[in-house]
């Protein structure tokens, strides 16, 4: 345990590096999955090929992908960019289907009524469809987030630093504290990020029945506004 106390700085630093590798991948996977999902829903013949195709990306073994990417993208072997790209691909594999299903589940009734009151196509997509798909999209993002945070560790094998380095080093040098710290911090990080996503969901989607309603303080302010 003394190893952990002596190396708190390193652990903290690696945690941040770990985050810096996984979060961009989550964001990229999310942003790319939306247009792909939109196309899958819009052009029905493309739906299954697209969804199954992207889904299969997840079956690509991660280690070879990490190794192949530099050759494909032209980065150096230890470039963290390889990790971000690989994780984005895995995230996309998880996210596209859930995004397509989330967007598809928005009822025709609401869409018809949004059209009837004068939303343009694009306006309706952003103001209505995307918002209403929010809770289901969030569920998808949570899976991608946790999966990315745990997958980053593999990069340590390639010599790209992350919390994974704590267990590669720990095994190599036989330091139990280091191995433990690596595992625990990865899990804690995943849990914290997941929790933050849930909280963000409640804040951004207070209308969602499965989320808590508006906090009392907010409610009071809004009631005053109504009375005015």
């Amino acid at each position: 345990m003394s190893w952990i106390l002596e190396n708190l700085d390193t652990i903290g630093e690696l945690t941040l590096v770990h985050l810096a590798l996984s979060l961009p991948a989550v964001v990229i996977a999310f942003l790319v999955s939306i247009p792909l999902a939109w196309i899958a829903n819009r052009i029905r013949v493309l739906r299954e090929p697209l969804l199954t195709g992207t889904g299969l990306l997840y079956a690509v073994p991660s280690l070879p992908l990490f190794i192949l990417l530099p050759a494909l993208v032209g980065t150096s072997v230890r470039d963290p960019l390889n990790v971000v790209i690989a994780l984005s691909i895995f995230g996309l594999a998880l996210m596209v289907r859930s995004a397509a299903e989330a967007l598809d589940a928005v009822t025709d009734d609401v869409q018809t009524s949004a059209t009837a009151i004068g939303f343009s196509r694009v306006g309706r997509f952003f103001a209505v469809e995307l918002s209403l798909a929010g809770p289901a999209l969030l569920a998808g993002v949570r899976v991608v987030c946790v999966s990315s945070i745990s997958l980053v560790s593999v990069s340590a094998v390639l010599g790209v630093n992350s919390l994974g380095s704590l267990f590669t080093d720990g095994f190599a040098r036989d330091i139990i504290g280091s191995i433990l710290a690596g595992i625990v911090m990865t899990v804690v990080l995943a849990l914290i990020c997941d929790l933050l996503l849930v909280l963000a969901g409640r804040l951004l989607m207070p209308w969602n029945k499965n989320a808590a309603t508006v906090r009392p303080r907010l409610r009071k302010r809004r009631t005053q506004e109504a009375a005015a």
Partner: protein
Amino acid sequence: MIEFRQVGKTYPDGTTAVEEFSLTVPSRSTAVLLGSSGCGKTTLLRMVNRMVEPSTGSVLIDEEDISGVEPVALRRRIGYVMQHSGLLPHRRVIDNIATVPRLNGASRADARKRGYELMEIVGLDAKLGLRYPGQLSGGQQQRVGVARGLAADPNILLMDEPFGAVDPLVRVELQRELARVQEELKKTIIFVTHDIDEALTLGDQIVVLKTGGAVAASGTPAELLSNRQDEFVSRFLGLDSGARSLSAEKTDDGELLISDAQGRPLGVVPAQTDRADRP
């Protein structure tokens, strides 16, 4: 004024929903499209805001053929209320009502102010404004739907079975409320229903439709009630079976005597006044 000129609609799958339908709805009057399920009421209604393009014929608003009007702009100046309120579940009641003024470019504050005015007009407590639609009763949601339909102060209001999903008592209350609002605001309304009492209560003009958008009968409520010639209409209105609680008979002065099922006189309608031309 809304004019359907021999419109027809055949959907891509080959279903002919409407054929050769013509109707003129004078400004500031209510026309009710009455008919059983699948006879083309919604299809006709949606031709007015270009959600359905007629396959033949044309629709005119104030003499202008709307096929030349940009659909989104057109919809923003026509109110639309539908059966399951069609409210946006992720927006507060007040913002649902304010949506249309916002789309038309009003500031958020102005749009909300307008929203609260409308809530008052349709008889909704202002404190419901901050709820989400899911937190309202069906009847309240329909009121919000009506308020939203009126929010852009449109001349035209299209209503597709707006009270179809609420219980009979609330329904009657909503009808009364709408009649009151109409008395005040004088919109040109096309109202779709398959409830005969609703049609008689709200319509200045009622069009009874058969399958394929064929007009079985049309006229003022009084004219329809006294019309026993057309078998389909009589049967539809229940005039033959006694199921209809009201019936009408022309008196010597040309007035209509309305009686209930037991033949007890209820009141008199001066048949000559066209309700559409009320000042």
